[in-house]
């Protein structure tokens, strides 16, 4: 049975339309214009136990809104969902004991107290038995390498250290599902790598299911086999991370090392993305890659050549830009 099942989720927000200026502000006192915004539009997917799934999309695409519906914070305008066998927005305690939502931009720990006190509070909120709480806490601080941090007031911790504490707090009650909204936002590369490594290990050892949004492709590549891509509220891709390039990468990156540094007419093979004397990067249409390579070899003396897929983040940003335009939703 899937851990998360979303069926045709829709969320429409009503937003107050206000023009700038004093006059319109005064007018707004008496009558207000509202505009309906479809934040999430017919989103369906299923996630199986133990999966780590990346949830990608540009800002405002509907990622966080979807996560909020799955966590039960808001209810959908249409559609329904089951999470861990419950309807999330009914918020039964039994459901709330079994998942965690961590938002990278929100702080859930007591700011002026050491994290250890917040952990104790968590223990009481979730009514965890003392011995298993101590054991889990020990394992988690070990995993995150955060033994000495829990005694310092949270406000004195660095952003990366604080995120570790947030994650430890979120995992204390051993949730089966972890919803992460930008867990590495604002972190330096080292902290990012540590956090993703810990999450991967925790997933491997505990089999926790993770659904995460992130703007850092490095996180996603390090953690997720499968991704969902959402733009303008619509799900445009649901499949393997490696499949994105095949479906959306229209070109291949051909790196050439030519003998003649003044070689002309390269534009006819494809878009010249970079040229530094004899070394040239070409974007070549995927469908024509064979014939184009043959033509290049025929017309130019080539010292070295490689054919690669374009970098993932470039492909994805192109998907984001195109939005719904060229893409079709996957079942």
């Amino acid at each position, binding site marked *: 049975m899937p851990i998360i099942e979303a069926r045709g989720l829709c969320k429409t*927000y*009503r937003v107050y339309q206000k023009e700038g200026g004093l006059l319109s502000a005064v007018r707004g006192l008496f009558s207000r214009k509202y505009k309906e915004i479809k934040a999430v539009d017919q989103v369906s997917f299923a996630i199986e136990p133990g999966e780590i799934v990346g949830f990608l999309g540009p800002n405002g695409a509907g990622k966080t*809104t979807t996560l*909020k519906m799955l*966590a*039960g*914070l*808001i*209810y959908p305008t249409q559609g329904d969902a089951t999470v861990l066998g419950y309807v999330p*927005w009914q*918020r039964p*305690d*039994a459901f*709330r*004991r079994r998942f*965690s*939502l961590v*938002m990278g931009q*929100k702080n*859930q720990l*007591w700011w*002026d*107290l050491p994290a250890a*006190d917040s952990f*104790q*509070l*968590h223990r*009481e*909120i*979730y*009514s965890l038995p003392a011995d298993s709480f101590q054991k889990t806490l020990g394992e988690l601080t070990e995993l995150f390498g955060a033994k000495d941090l829990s005694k310092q007031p949270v406000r004195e911790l660095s952003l990366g250290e604080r995120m570790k504490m947030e994650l430890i707090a979120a995992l204390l009650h051993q949730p089966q599902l972890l919803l992460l909204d930008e867990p590495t936002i604002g972190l330096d590369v080292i902290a990012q790598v540590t956090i993703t490594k810990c999450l991967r290990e925790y997933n491997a050892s505990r089999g926790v299911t993770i659904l995460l949004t992130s703007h850092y492709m490095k996180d996603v590549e390090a953690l997720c086999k499968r991704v969902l891509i959402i733009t303008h509220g619509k799900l445009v891709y649901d499949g393997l991370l490696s499949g994105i390039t095949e479906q959306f990468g229209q070109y291949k990156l051909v790196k050439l090392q030519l003998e003649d540094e003044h070689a002309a007419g390269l534009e006819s093979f494809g878009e010249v993305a970079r040229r530094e004397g004899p070394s040239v990067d070409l974007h070549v249409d995927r469908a024509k890659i064979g014939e184009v390579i043959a033509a290049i070899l025929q017309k130019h003396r080539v010292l070295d050549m490689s054919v690669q897929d374009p970098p993932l983040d470039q492909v994805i940003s192109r998907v984001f830009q195109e939005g719904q335009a060229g893409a079709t939703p996957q079942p």
Partner: protein
Amino acid sequence: MQPLSLSQSLVKYLKILRISLVERLVYRGDFLLATVFRFLPLITTFLLWDAVYTSRREMLDRQGHASEPVEMSGFSLQQMTAYLLLVQISRMFSSMPGLASGLARDIRDGNIKKYLLQPIDLLAYLLAYRGAHKIAYIITSSLPYAVLFFFFRDVFPGWPSWGTLGLYALSLMLGFVIGFFFEACVGLAGFWFLEVTSFIYIIGTLNFFVSGHMFPLDLLDPSLTAVLKYLPFQYLAYFPAMVFLEMKSAAELTEGFIIEATWAASMIVLAKFLYWRGLKRYSAFGG
């Protein structure tokens, strides 16, 4: 996991109270300042009433009523002073600084999410937290208050009976409940209004006056006091002080406690209702 029984969940919130107590004690400096500065307005109030009674005395003397004691609506200067001291104790239990504004802010900034994600009831949590806040405050200010009361010991006729002390404790506890849930209701208005600061300010100012914090309500017009008796405000300051001073008849006490208990229960129900409606609205629009 089994759902918790009532006693287990009570224990849960008591433990939360204990941890919150630790949190409150972090802010030692704030406590100290709050305690010291709380006495400053009290001194000016005493000086004011002293002046009022002195001029009344002089007036009576001039009119040749030198033997007549100075009283205002049945309050001698001693009783007035005792009343003003006791109102401080009432407010120690019933005032909830920052509760309404904090709750409204949490709603607006979305921090309320925290309580929706965890298996916890927001109002019960805030009550435990506030209880801890109160305990910490009462402990830290008990010494300065003891000094203050000792200094003014002559204005009290002596210790009231055990029965009166029991009723006094009850009136303070009910005052705490009314104060907490009333402020919570004001804060929960944040679900419907983006900004509730001016609302909170108006209520605070009004409360200072009609709760009897400023002066005994007996000084007001009897028609007004008759109305105020049925409102929740006087149970936050005036009523407990009058219980301690034994200045109410048995019938008045009975009536007072019935009204106070009814308000306490109504406020709980109202706060729970507003929270339930507010969450429905929040889940539909906000997040």
